[in-house]
């Protein structure tokens, strides 16, 4: 695990998201209503919709383009939809959001 400090929890709106831009595409960092953080690829595997712009509810987000719902913990779409988006380990320490993006290295540049 290699944790990176990406910013303060308060920089992310509750039930909202902010982006971390990388050389291999954007990662969406979500904050739930209960102040948990999760990180997902910011591209819906269906049509590339920006998940960071979706409505956050419970521990999932609804893609703004076609309403696919992704679970933060698994990255899997709900119901009959079979897509899975990549998740990244995320945690909060002393009000700071830490992200482990080591899985990014295996990914081709988007």
């Amino acid at each position, binding site marked *: 695990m290699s944790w990176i400090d990406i910013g303060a929890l308060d920089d992310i*709106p509750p039930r909202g998201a902010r982006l971390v*831009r990388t050389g291999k595409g954007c990662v969406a960092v979500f904050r739930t209503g209960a102040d948990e953080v999760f990180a997902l690829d910011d591209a819906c595997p269906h049509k590339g919709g920006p998940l960071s712009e979706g409505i*956050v509810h*419970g521990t999932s987000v609804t893609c703004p383009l076609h309403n696919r719902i992704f679970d933060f913990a698994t990255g899997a779409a709900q*119901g*009959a*939809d079979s897509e899975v988006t990549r998740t990244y380990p995320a945690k909060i320490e002393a009000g700071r959001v830490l992200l482990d993006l080591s899985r990014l290295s295996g990914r081709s540049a988007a």
Partner: protein
Amino acid sequence: MEKLVVIGAGMASGRVLEHLFDAAPGAFDVTLFNAEPRGNYNRIMLSPVLSGEKSAEEIVTHDADWYARHGVATRFGERVTAIDPARKVVTGENGEVPYDKLVIATGAAPFIVPLPGHDLPGVIGFRDMEDTGAMIAAAATPGATAVVIGGGLLGLEAAAALRLRGMEVTVLHNSGHLMNRQLDEAAGYLLEKDLARRGIKVITRAGTERIDGDGKVEKVVLGDGTEIAASLVVMSAGIRPRAGLGMAAGLAAGRAITVDAQMRTSDPDIFAVGECVEFEGNLFGLVAPLYDQARVLAKTLLGEEDAFVMRELSTKLKVTGCDLFSAGDFAEGEGREDIVFRDPARGIYKRLVIEADRLLGAVMYGDTADANWFFGLIKDGTDISEMRETLIFGPAFQGGGGPSADPLAAVAALPPEAEICGCNGVCKGTIVTAINGGAQTLETVKAQTKASASCGTCTGLVEQVLAVTLGAAFEAGGAKPVCGCTELTHEDVRRLIKARELKSQAAVWQELGWTTKDGCHVCRPAINYYLLADWPLEYRDDPQSRFVNERNHANIQKDGTYSVMPRMWGGMTTPEELLAIAAAAKKYDAAVKVTGGQRIDLLGVKKEDLPAIWKDLNDAGMVSGHAYTKGLRTVKTCVGSDWCRFGTQDSTGLGIKLEKRLWGSWTPHKVKLAVSGCPRNCAEATCKDVGIVCVDSGYQIGVAGAAGMDVKETERLVDVATEEEAIEWSTAFIQLYRENAKYLDRPYKWVAKVGLGWVKEILSDAAERRALNARFDVSQSVYQTDPWAALVTEEERKSWSSPLMDMSREAAE
């Protein structure tokens, strides 16, 4: 356990399995072959998938989980090549499977008319998911054109769906009128006119000669030499049973595999069901008899008594907005009489065919509300001599009660054995039993009885049965819960938010017993709206409960860019504004589109550029056009008495005043207005949510028009003499709508539910109008602000869309 092998996973065999697993779970060890690489889906809903009104996922009837739960070994995507009745073995592409009992459900194939060129790429039937996918792909090419050969039920559904996807569509039909097997000439004519209005060209008596093209379809040539360009040709000239497998196995067959009333073939252990069978010389294509066959076959397999009988069939066309119905026999003949009703203005045609005091057939177009009642009379052979004079007006006009406009009364009068759902053969009694047994919503009735579960055209009728049975406990059309987070309907929630003074989302979740922590993407935007509309001063709008467009004050496009549209008051602009718009379009590399709402749309703007383009437009004196909101959109006007020879009033001026009063307000759905300066109606005011037509004596205010998914003329709310009154009434109407309508109901839908009479009654009270205007003012004091101007400093504009962290340069190095 007995080994049951089923060949074909279509609607008929799917229903057989449902019956088997319901009645005797575990009685059979089932292997299911399907040549299509998937399980059972609702094939008759392919047309809505083609049109985009439904997704492929939505029409799946059995998913992998269902098959697993019932222990079905699925061999999808595998063709069966042979049946050996002597060894009782089925041979698939991947090997043999032995059976004790075999069900052949191989269905039918579209009939490809053997015209020259029928084998060119681009010529397809309309039968399965692959065909549907191919058509959707073909429609995606700009300028693509389609020819549909065959103007029957399926062909027309395909044509309408392709048209909805933007294709130029021509329907070629060999007979003299469309759907000639189900409709008479008059109804066929109305249908043709309706399709023409949707931009679908119909050629009857077409005499198609050949299909031409170099390596792929390019055109269709008719007998008279007419050439029609086509990149896609859909063959929809009927179906042919797929009976080859059964015939090769030596089973008795005519045009299809012969079965007896127990669905048994000439081999005692082999059964057949669906479109691949022939029963007493009849072939099958509609779903209702297939389901009857499925029920009988399941009983036969379980050793119970049942027999398949032919019954009367009825037809409805699943094209949104085209209401037609036909049933029974409506050919002319000796001793037959017609009763015909026509209302050309409304495009309504009804014809009843009567023989010896019995109703033999019925054709209706434009108004099919009473179709099921007539269908019942046909099936039951009811003696109609007593009601003959008023028969054509339907059930509401029968009996001693005199005319009644209440559709519920008609449903209440139906006997228990009246059929409600034609697809699944569900009668009223079955539904009432289910309701009394606890099924109190449309969804549960659907799940328990299958009523309205197939083509869905009887949904309204099922809701009416619910309403009649449950009385006040059921609100017709509104009984669906908001979403999966609650059992409450939108109407309940609105009422409770007001009555219990719930002023925050948390209060709603808690007091109304939400089952989720903070709602979902369906309920949150609705609740956010209800709260801000009812408590403008107490509740604070929550951007995180808004759809992306309303959060980013711009419309997201399919590629993730946005469109930006400044307001043009009443459709008026200036050279200075146009220069600023042109400069912005160049600076941010935007495509420029003139909209139907008399404004200019800048498309393709990147999210990070939004604050800057807003500032540029703000600096030129323009504000957000709110083209992205459930709120006040545009007020379209004509030039009116300022310029026009015919103008009676200053329609532009009134439009501008209305827009300045109403802009910025949030509403349950988008709201569009128009003001026309005279009855020539150049601003198309009579299909708007609120449309004003100026006349010499003043202003005619119409409301509840529509020109989207539905097209509907406005209904007259009131005529007033002055501009001030026109503005006061319009505002009061919109505030009443804001306070009462269900989220995502346009005004025309809301008015249809509450009735224009109720709206008029409230608004005709001057004190009530003043109070509504006052409450609107309070709301505007909070919400009439330009979101584009909210970012004041350069710093704010920069950070608005900046990433939390940018590691892209790091990673690149």
